[in-house]
């Protein structure tokens, strides 16, 4: 239906937006690649939706320039940008049938009746709405309305599809189904997708890259595993999932990584050089730590006492305290947790050198 070459490539340079004295978006510079699935992730008020509205042309940036395929579109009105958009709550036209909703973007483009009929038919087929053509939006379920919104935004083959928290009104099982559907539509159309969400698991599951926002600033952009495993910043590390943070002293660069002292024990990190001298924070995801009777010489490990457990079905979440009083959470097999708790005394927490990473000490 669409040549992947027609997907848009977007470049935002120094985009900022102020509402009165409130700085909603600050100095945002970002390249969105052709055919990419980029997720804008952040808590509410982080600037992600403001950026989406700027991309759509509904909000005019206070500073910066926006380019689409090398053309400056900063001042171009929304109706001339040819960006498909799916709104939170879908924003379907309540007085138009499913068919008429999907045909609308083609009608305003003055396509011929036969072309409209053919493309609307294809799109209805593609999103699985056959048999619902004549219904009004109010007669459809949430998932079906979502499909109409997607079909309407894709039918005119836009260079970019913008999605503003499209799944927030759906229940969990439907959500998973729609996510899979959206991923499929992305592959089939080859269009550039820019997706806004505050749900980190959704962001990690869907995107080719994730851009994390907080307080109007873009903090980090990268592939899902990159931002999850190697966050450059404490907010990103915490927002993407649970994380254990331990103070690390005497940080020094070493072969292919760094070393330092954690609770008076030498630990090593692989794959990330210490860009911060002296003290730092050692961060490890709960699923990357294991419980052991003891730590071998040269193995990363600290002593801790198990204090509580939460049964999660597939695994158990175990809360521990280290000798120096730091709180640590690990996710371990159920029988390991039971053993650790029943002993009631000290266990060792170990982790592979490549799974720990450094964050700047204090503040962000």
């Amino acid at each position, binding site marked *: 239906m669409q040549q992947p070459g027609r997907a848009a490539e977007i470049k935002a340079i120094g985009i900022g937006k102020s509402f009165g004295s409130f700085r909603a978006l600050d100095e945002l510079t970002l390249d969105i690649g052709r055919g990419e699935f980029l997720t804008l992730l952040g808590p509410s008020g982080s600037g992600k939706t403001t950026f989406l509205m700027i991309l*759509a*042309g*509904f909000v005019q940036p206070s500073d910066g320039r926006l380019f689409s395929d090398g053309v400056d579109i900063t001042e171009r*009105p*929304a*109706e*001339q*940008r*040819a*960006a*498909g*958009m799916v*709104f*939170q*709550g879908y*924003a*379907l*036209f*309540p*007085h138009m049938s499913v068919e008429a909703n999907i045909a*609308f*973007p083609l009608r*305003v*483009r003055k396509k011929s009746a036969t072309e409209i009929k053919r493309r609307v038919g294809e799109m209805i087929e593609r999103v699985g709405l056959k048999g619902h053509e004549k219904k009004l939006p109010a007669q459809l379920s949430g998932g079906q309305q979502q499909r109409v919104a997607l079909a*309407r*935004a894709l039918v*005119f083959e836009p260079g970019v599809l*913008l999605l503003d928290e499209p799944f927030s009104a759906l229940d969990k099982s439907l959500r998973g189904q729609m996510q899979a559907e959206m991923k499929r539509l992305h592959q089939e159309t080859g269009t550039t997708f820019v997706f806004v969400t505050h749900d980190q698991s959704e962001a990690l599951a869907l995107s080719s890259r994730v851009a994390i926002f907080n307080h109007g600033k873009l903090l980090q952009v990268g592939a899902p595993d990159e931002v999850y495993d190697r966050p450059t910043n404490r907010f990103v590390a915490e927002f993407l999932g649970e994380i254990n943070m331990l103070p690390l002293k005497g940080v020094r660069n070493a072969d292919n990584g760094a070393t330092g002292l954690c609770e008076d024990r030498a630990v090593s990190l692989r794959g990330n050089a210490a860009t911060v001298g002296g003290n730092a924070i050692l961060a490890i995801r709960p699923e990357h730590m294991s419980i052991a009777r003891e730590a071998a010489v040269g193995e990363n490990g600290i002593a801790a006492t198990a204090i509580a457990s939460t049964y999660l079905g597939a695994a158990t979440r175990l809360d521990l305290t280290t000798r120096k009083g730091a709180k640590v959470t690990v996710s371990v097999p159920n029988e390991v947790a039971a053993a650790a708790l029943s002993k009631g005394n000290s266990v060792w927490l170990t982790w592979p050198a490549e799974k720990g990473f450094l964050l700047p000490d204090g503040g962000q």
Partner: protein
Amino acid sequence: MRGTRSDRTGAALLMAPLLLFLALAYAWPFLGVVKWSFTLPTPGLGQYGALATDSLVQSVFIRTLRIAAIVTIVSVAAAYAITVVWVRGTPAQRLIAEFCILVPFWISVLTRAFGWVALLSNRGLINTWLQSIGFISEPLALVRNEFGVIVGMTHFLIPFAVFPLASSMRSLDDRVLLAARGLGSSRMRTFWSIFVPMTRSGIIGSAMIVFVFSLGFFVTPAILGGGRSVMIAELIYLRIFQSPDWGLGAAISVVLVLFVGALMALLFRYVRPKQLI
């Protein structure tokens, strides 16, 4: 939301005084009018038979419907424009629109009718001015005819047409309009194919209110029509107080009330009362 039983009892008690007042002041006297229509001057259906054949009554009925239809179209269109500004304009525009909507309520219908006479009569402001700039040599017939009646009634009814429209425009989801523009629709196109259809219930409600009000207008047509453009309410007045032909006047009243009742029933099939405020 469905109230509990005691809620409904409470609501009934609160409405009781008004219902009682309406029953005593309107329903009871009207029953008397219905009785006259069948008994004066002689018992029977004679008055209704006369209505069916009386060409004067019929021409007044047709004129009333015609004036009401024109007034409805013009009022709703003008009110629509004002309401768009009132609901969606900048704060300064909203203030001006609100002023224009509310001020007419402070001036009595009589004062306004005479105000229009002063503006529209042969030696009124408009004709004098048009003559002084040499645009016309003879004064235009702007008043003491149907045109004057329509002008005066439209002016009176526009504020009433505003409220149902405002209600439907306020409940409209802005994102739907943004969606239309994001999909490539110009502002004009978005207005005509999305905004206007989505305020359909407001347009219907507004038109019905204006139309029903127009049917019963008395003071404005009496003054601005100058006796030449008599509407149905004035005809009833003439039959009762001047002819005097109470039976015929009463029969016209009954027909008018039934007609308005039918229109209201039709209205509430399409619009919920809540959408009219």
